[in-house]
Every structure is written in structure tokens, then in C-alpha cells.
């Protein structure tokens, strides 16, 4: 595989950090938001400029500093990282627009702080995506944990405080308590932390030790919200909605899953996992999370909490796809990083738009809201279709591949898990949509008069819903990236 040296990955990471001083010293909000947009577009542009090279099978590498003998802060852009970076940097642009509508619509305090830490969080996300070794990944993973804390606790009230505590306890507690010892053990065993397509742990330790290590990693990256370490995510919903949308449906949680994927493929390697017979265990853990998450979502009345539990379940699709260890399943899992992102962010945007326009958070208070906010609720409908995994939305493709992956791996029970989960997804999303549009005039809680949220709140979900549809018909480049990532992993 061809390798090219370039500082572009570093620039892509740093551009949003570099914007922070400008955000702080901007004299009025419009200048400040201009800087956010500038950073977001530049970041997306840099990521995009690396896409052709990555698609043609080139790896872009950049070593920043040798921090310890045998350990460096280094970036390497491959297909998997590219896919994730593309998703999160493109959605930052949309979310920035949405943030303006949401934060100004609600006249929130501390907006400068909010935009600053948002920019920091995005830097950390891209850092994780492009990390060339486990140390660099861990560095940005931790940076993301601390950068998102002020966002989660934005409201600075008692509820935010206790949620913030839970957030840190789960996220930082596991990364220090589980990942750090696992990482040091891996380094002691393999003598390196560099990700490679075949992993570096094969033949270094006893099966029991390696199995234990895998679980330290899978549960230690608690941002992936694998049960039983999931309950920080519903708690984090106390954050302003744009934070929930970009960070708790895309960036933070996907960083968790992405780290798990990296560890499975780059540290252990598919062959090692196969020889350790860990596929059933991984898929079982993921299946439990999928089913339990979906069942809990059924019983939620708070819309954002429902979305949170749905996210918990959907994240495990990705773990499940990788755990199948079959090419189709892995393609589906990796593709789901992108497909779920566009679907779920749409849903969060809609939930936020409803809150801005009406102040309602609970589903039971949203009967008949489709008449008042038809555009928002249509976008919501499309987003939920994508999550359920039916055409005309992109979620269909990833679910299709996951299902064929179960057939390929000959795992019939998993097939049923996926199908049951789809039914459950429909069961918790469709009533929301149904009751929004179809109710008798007596039941309706809203006047029959169209009154949408501000344009900056409504535009973004429409855009992401549209992208969700486009992704069904035109899934490249994500599809090609996922395919070439899997090709690299399986060596086929």
C-alpha cells in the first residue's frame, strides 16, 4: 500500500482549535459564528481534499512528535478513518447552522463558551479518526471527554451537575480504569501501539489474557455505550440539543465505537479474534445491548431520552457487524457509522426544533404537532425510516449488509436480533409520527396553523434528511470507503 507524507491530517485536527482564540475575541455573535463556519468549512475542505488519495488506496501519514521511546503522536489517514472524519466534519457545518438557530432561539447563556468547546470537541474527534496508534487515539479520546463536559453541563443547574458527574464517572472512569491498563498491557505484550491491518497482538499472550484485554477495551471505551456502561448517554441528554445531535449521536458515541473497531481490527486483527473464537461473545454482548436498548426506548416519553436509547441500540449494530468477522457484516457495520449518523442527527435536530418552537419535550405532548410543524415532522419521519432501515433512506443499505453478513457468517440468531430490532425501531418511532399527523381535531394539542421553528432550526434537519435519502441512491463515497477498509482488514 502506498504511503504519502503530508501535514494535512494535522491541519485538519488543528483548524478548529486554532479557531478558538478568534471565537473568544470576536466582538459580536455574528463575527463569532462566521469564525465557526470558516473553521468548519476549512476542516471539511481539508478532509475532502484527502478523499481522492484515500479512495485510490493511498495512506496519508504524519508524525507530529515522538513522546516516548516507541510511542509517537502520529496520524494516518486510511479508509476507515476517512469515512468517520468525513461524516463528522460535514455534519459540523450543518450543526453549526443549527446551533445558531437553537441557541439564539432559546436565548441561551454562555454561547461563546459553547462554541469554543464545540470546536475543541471536533478537533478531538478528527484526532481520533486519524490516529495512527493507540496512544494518539487515547490522547484525543480523553481530550474529547473533557472538552464535552462543559457542553453537557451547559445549563449549570443541579440537573446538569449530576448528569455531568455521571458522564465523567462513566467516560473517564472507564478510560482510566480499563483502557489505560489494557493499553499498557498491550504495549508490554506487543512492543508497539501502532495500528496495523493484521493487529500486533497475535501470538503474544495466552488466550485468556487476550480475551480479558479485548473486554477491557470494548467496555473501557464507554463512549460506545455497550451495556452495562450505557447509562451516561441518557443522562447526557440534559445538554442543549445541538450537543446531543452532533456529539451524542455522531461524534462522541461514534468515537467510542470507532475506537472499538480500531482495536478489533488494528490491535487484535480479525485472524486472532477468529482463532480465539470471540465472535459469538462479541455479537452476544452487542445483541443484548440492541434488544434491551430498543425495549427501553419503547417506554420513553421524553423524546430525547427515546433517541438516546435508540442510539445505544444502534451503536451496537456497528459492534455487531464487526463481531460477525465476515466481510459483508463488517462492511455493514462500518457503513452504519455514516448511515446512522445522518438519520439520527435529523431526529435530534427535529426534537430540538420542536423544543424551540413549542417548548415541548415529551412525546405525549406532541399529539397533532405535524399540523403545526409539517416540515420538521416530515424530516423526522424520514430520519426514523433511516434508523428502522427501510427505503428510501440510507439506513437500508447498512442494514442490508448487516443482514447478509449474518447469513455469510451463518449466524441465524443474530439475523433474528436484527429483524426484531427493526420491528422495535418501528414500534417506537412510528407512533410518534402517527400521532403527530393523524389525530382527531379534539385530540390535537396544537392549532391547525403552520408555525415552524426559526429557519436555522428547520433547515438543518431538512438537509440531513435529504442527504439520508440521497445516500440510498448514491452511497459512494462512504460505500467505497467501507469496502476498502474491509478489504484492508481482511487482506482480500
Amino acid at each position, binding site marked *: 500500500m502506498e504511503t504519502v507524507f503530508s501535514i494535512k491530517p494535522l491541519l485538519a485536527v488543528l483548524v478548529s482549535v486554532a479557531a478558538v482564540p478568534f471565537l473568544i475575541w470576536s466582538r459580536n455573535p455574528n463575527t463569532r459564528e462566521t469564525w465557526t463556519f470558516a473553521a468548519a468549512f476549512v476542516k471539511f475542505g481539508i478532509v475532502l481534499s484527502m478523499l481522492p488519495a484515500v479512495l485510490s488506496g493511498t495512506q496519508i501519514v504524519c508524525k507530529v512528535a515522538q513522546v516516548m521511546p516507541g510511542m509517537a503522536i502520529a496520524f494516518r489517514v486510511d479508509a476507515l478513518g476517512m469515512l468517520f472524519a468525513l461524516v463528522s466534519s460535514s455534519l459540523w457545518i450543518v450543526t453549526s447552522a443549527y446551533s445558531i438557530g437553537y441557541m439564539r432561539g432559546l436565548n*441561551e447563556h454562555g454561547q461563546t463558551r459553547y462554541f469554543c468547546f464545540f470546536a475543541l470537541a471536533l478537533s478531538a474527534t478528527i484526532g481520533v479518526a486519524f490516529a495512527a496508534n493507540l496512544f494518539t487515539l487515547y490522547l484525543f479520546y480523553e481530550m474529547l471527554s473533557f472538552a464535552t463536559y462543559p457542553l453537557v453541563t451547559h445549563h449549570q*443547574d443541579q440537573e446538569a451537575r449530576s448528569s455531568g458527574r455521571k458522564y465523567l464517572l462513566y467516560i*473517564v472512569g472507564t478510560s482510566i480504569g480499563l483502557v489505560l491498563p489494557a493499553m499498557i498491557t498491550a504495549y508490554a505484550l506487543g512492543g508497539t501501539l501502532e495500528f496495523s491491518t493484521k493487529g500486533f497482538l497475535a501470538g503474544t499472550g495466552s488466550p485468556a489474557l487476550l480475551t480479558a484485554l479485548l473486554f477491557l477495551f470494548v467496555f473501557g471505551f464507554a463512549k460506545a455505550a455497550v451495556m452495562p456502561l450505557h447509562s451516561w448517554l441518557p443522562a447526557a441528554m440534559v445538554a442543549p440539543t445541538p450537543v446531543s445531535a452532533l456529539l451524542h449521536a455522531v461524534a462522541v458515541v461514534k468515537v467510542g465505537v470507532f475506537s472499538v473497531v480500531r482495536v478489533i481490527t488494528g490491535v487484535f486483527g480479525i485472524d486472532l479474534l477468529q482463532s480465539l473464537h470471540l465472535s459469538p461473545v462479541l455479537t452476544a454482548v452487542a445483541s443484548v445491548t440492541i434488544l434491551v436498548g430498543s425495549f427501553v426506548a419503547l417506554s420513553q416519553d421524553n423524546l430525547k431520552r427515546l433517541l438516546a436509547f435508540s442510539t445505544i441500540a444502534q451503536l451496537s449494530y456497528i459492534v455487531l457487524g464487526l463481531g460477525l468477522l465476515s466481510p459483508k457484516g463488517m462492511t455493514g457495520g462500518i457503513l452504519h457509522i455514516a448511515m446512522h449518523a445522518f438519520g439520527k442527527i435529523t431526529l435530534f435536530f427535529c426534537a430540538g426544533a420542536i423544543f424551540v418552537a413549542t417548548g415541548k419535550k415529551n412525546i405525549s405532548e406532541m399529539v397533532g404537532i405535524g399540523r403545526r410543524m409539517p416540515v420538521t415532522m416530515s424530516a423526522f419521519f424520514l430520519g426514523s425510516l433511516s434508523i428502522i432501515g427501510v427505503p428510501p433512506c440510507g439506513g437500508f443499505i447498512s442494514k442490508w449488509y448487516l443482514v447478509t453478513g449474518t447469513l455469510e457468517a451463518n449466524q441465524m440468531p443474530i439475523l433474528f436480533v436484527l429483524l426484531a430490532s427493526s420491528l422495535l425501531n418501528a414500534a417506537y418511532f412510528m407512533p410518534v409520527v402517527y400521532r403527530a399527523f393523524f389525530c382527531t381535531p379534539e385530540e390535537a394539542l396544537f392549532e391547525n396553523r403552520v408555525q415552524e421553528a426559526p429557519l436555522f432550526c428547520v433547515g438543518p434537519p431538512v438537509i440531513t434528511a435529504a442527504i439520508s435519502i440521497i445516500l440510498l441512491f448514491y452511497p459512494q463515497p462512504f460505500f467505497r470507503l467501507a469496502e476498502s477498509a474491509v478489504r484492508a482488514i481482511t487482506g482480500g
Partner: protein
Amino acid sequence: MSHHFPALLVIAPLLSAFFISGAGWLNRRFCLPLAVASLGVAGLSALSLFWRVVQQGPVLYRLGGWDPPWGIAYAVDFLNAPVLVLICIVALLNLWASHRQVEEQFKEKTGAFYTLYVLMVTGLLGITVTGDAFNLYVLLEIASLSGYGLIAMGEDRAPLATLNYVYMGTIGACFYLLGIGYLYIVTGSLNMADIARILPGLYENKAVLTALIICLVGLWLKMAFFPLHVWLPNAYTFAPVPSAALIAPLMTKVMVYVMIRLMLTVFTPGYVFSTLGINDAVVWFAVIAIVMGAILALGQRDLKKMISYIIVAEVGYMVGGAWLGNRAGMTGAILHIINDALMTLCLFLAVAAITYRMKSYTFSSLKGLIRKMPFTMGAFILGGLSIIGVPPTCGFFSKWYLITGALQAGHYGFMAALLFSSLVNVVLFFRIIEIGFFEPFNEGHGHGEHGPEPMNEAPLSILVPLWIVALGLVVVGVYTSEIITHVLQFAIPKAIL
């Protein structure tokens, strides 16, 4: 001239102490420039010695031209060269940060403070640079006595805390002296290199064993190794902040250095780790120190006491790492001497800034502080992240080596203690961030722009050195590789694998 740097290191601050105390009588304005100048000379000497050691290897200096073992030798090698530089940097930065407070708080005692300050630094530099076991005791007393004075200058319960420290510290120093006495009886020498040459033939001798144990107990008392830590929290809490910010980062760390010096230079690693057979027990004591330090820190309601107990835990890190008996653990321990001194300095300078404005360092005075003093709190948080061990701050890297060492030695208790204390540190620092960030609670759940609360930052003379240290934590972290490949790996004998 450059030949005399090892002596200059000690003599420049020692002589200046007389002039400063004179200036304190005549004109207080001259005290600070004199202190800065003498410490500057010491700092430049330390830097050039460090450079020479890295370039050409260890330097041996004979005081007065007398050859060892009869004369006193000053030996600068890969182990103490970085510690010398560290002491000078910490002393100078703290001088810069605290001079305003010193002059406002001590008024006519300013001269006395600066005299004691340079004497303390003299002692610390001397302890570190000397190659003579008895000379080390003399300088240890210089450092300790001036340290007692510095702490006793505080208000409130400072005299009582000092008295406690005097008792404990004196016992510690006496133990060390007694141990050296035993060694002198057995070997007839006080020069470290000379003792090291004679000792291997005498390792069967019970007096040698007793000497080492007694020396170690004395040093553990001086470095506040749990359960011999009881003097430390009150002494550091009631000390005036300018004194605490000098003593807390340096005193315990220099004592750890002396312990490592004894283990590696005076005795052989083979004797200390194999023949003696106490390393497992010591590491378990370190485990207790770390766990108890962390738990006791959790119970505190003011900043200085909390940091004091964190130091107790950190001493456990270093002692445990040094006694793991492998290369990674020893590297971690030495690296942590540097890192912990910088982290502690960072925290104490932040406390200095907070006390300067709020006139208090209890948790309740921290309310709303992130808005009122964002730069101070920013640096404080950075220091906290380093204590927690978040990359790329330096605290992560020493912790990495310590955990690797624990793993290689199969000492899982030590590994668990390190992780436990990291987690407790998360709680400790985020509790402070919570108080600074959330309280007082806003009415109406924080919607709407509030009128800007007045920002009341500390003066630049505190903020600038504070941020130099805070950024230094990251710089030192990123340059860990250089520090280890160019310096520390030569400090550890090849016998330790």
C-alpha cells in the same frame, strides 16, 4: 570559571543569604534583586552542568582541591543534573510569582524571608550535588532549618505545625546521620563513591544492613512516606503560600532523589533488590501510601490540604516505583520527581493566585471562580489533568512507566493503587471544577445572558509564571522521549533490567 560551576551552585546562594539579610536591615528593595541574582547564577551553573553532563558525561569536582575520600567531592551525573535544573527553575519561578505577596504580607520581615528562601535552595542544591554522605546531612539540616523558618512565618496554627515538623524532621535527619555513622564505622569513609567501592565485600555484615534500613527510615520520614507523613499536611497548609510553593514541590522530591541515590550509587542494585529482600514489602507500603493519601485527600475541604494529601499519595508513587526493582519502575520514579515537582508547583501557584484575590483557600471561596479567574483556573485545571494523568501532560508519562514497571514486576496491587488514585484525582479536581463552575446556582436555569460578573484575575506577576509552569507540563510531557533517551536511561545502572 566554568570549572567551578558545581561549587558556585551552592556558594552563590549561600553567600547571597548574608547580603540579603543585611539588605533587609538597610533597604528592603535590594533583597529581591539579590535573591534573583544569586538564584540566577545557580540556575545558569545548573544548566551548563546539565549540558556538560549530557554532552560529556558525569562531572566530578573536588572542593578546595582535596581529593576524595578525604576531601568533599561534588559529583554531577545523569541522575542529579536534571534535579539541579529543576530546583533552580522551581525556585526562580516561585520567586517571580510570589514576590508581590511576600512584600505585602511580610513587610519588615521581607529580608528574613528571602534569606531563608535562598538558604533553603542552597540546602536543596547542596543535597543534590554532593557526593559526600556526611556533607549531605549538613546540607539537609540547612534546608530543613530554613524550611522550618519559612513555614513558621505563616499565621494561625503555623508555629504549632512547624513545631510538629521540627520534631519529626529532626528525628528523620538523626536517623539518616545514625545510618551514615554505621557506614562510616564499617567502611571508614564518607565519600559515596568510596563507600560504594568498599561495601560489596561487607554485604554479609549486619551493620551494613542496619545502616541502610536506618537511613531509609530517616529519609522516609523526611519525604512523608505514609505512615510517616503526619507532619506534612499541617505544615504545608499553614505555611504562607510563597513558602509552601517552594517547599511542597521540592523537599519531598529531593528526599526521593536521595533515597534513589543511596539505592543506586552507595549500595548496589543487586544488594538492595535481591539480598535485602524488602522490596516487596516497601512496594506494599507504597500501595498503602497511595490509597490512604487519595482517601484522605477526598476528605479535605480546603485546597492546600487537599494538595498536601495528594503529595502524600505521589510520594507513594515514587517510592513504589523505585522499589519495584526494574528499569521501567525506576524510570517512572525518577521521571516523576521532575513531573511531580512541576505539577505541585503549578497547583500551588494557582493557589497563590486564588489566595491573593480571595484571601482564602477553602472550597467555599472557590464559588464562581471559573468566571472570576478564568486564567488561574485554566492553569489549575491543567495541573489537575496532569495529576490525574491525562496525555499529553507529563503526569501521564511517568504514570505509564510506573504501571509498566508494576506489570513487569507482577505487582498488581501497585498497579491497582495507581489506577485507583488516578480515579480519585478525577473526583478531587472535578469537585473543584464543579464548585467553580456551577455555584452559585443561577436562577431560572441559566437561560438568558447574565450581566457580566466582574472578572477579577490575579496580577500578571503571578499569572505569567503560573502559565509557564502549566504549559511546561505539556512541553515536558511531549519531550519525555528526549529526557529518557538522552538523560534518564544513563542514570539507571545497566544491572537493573
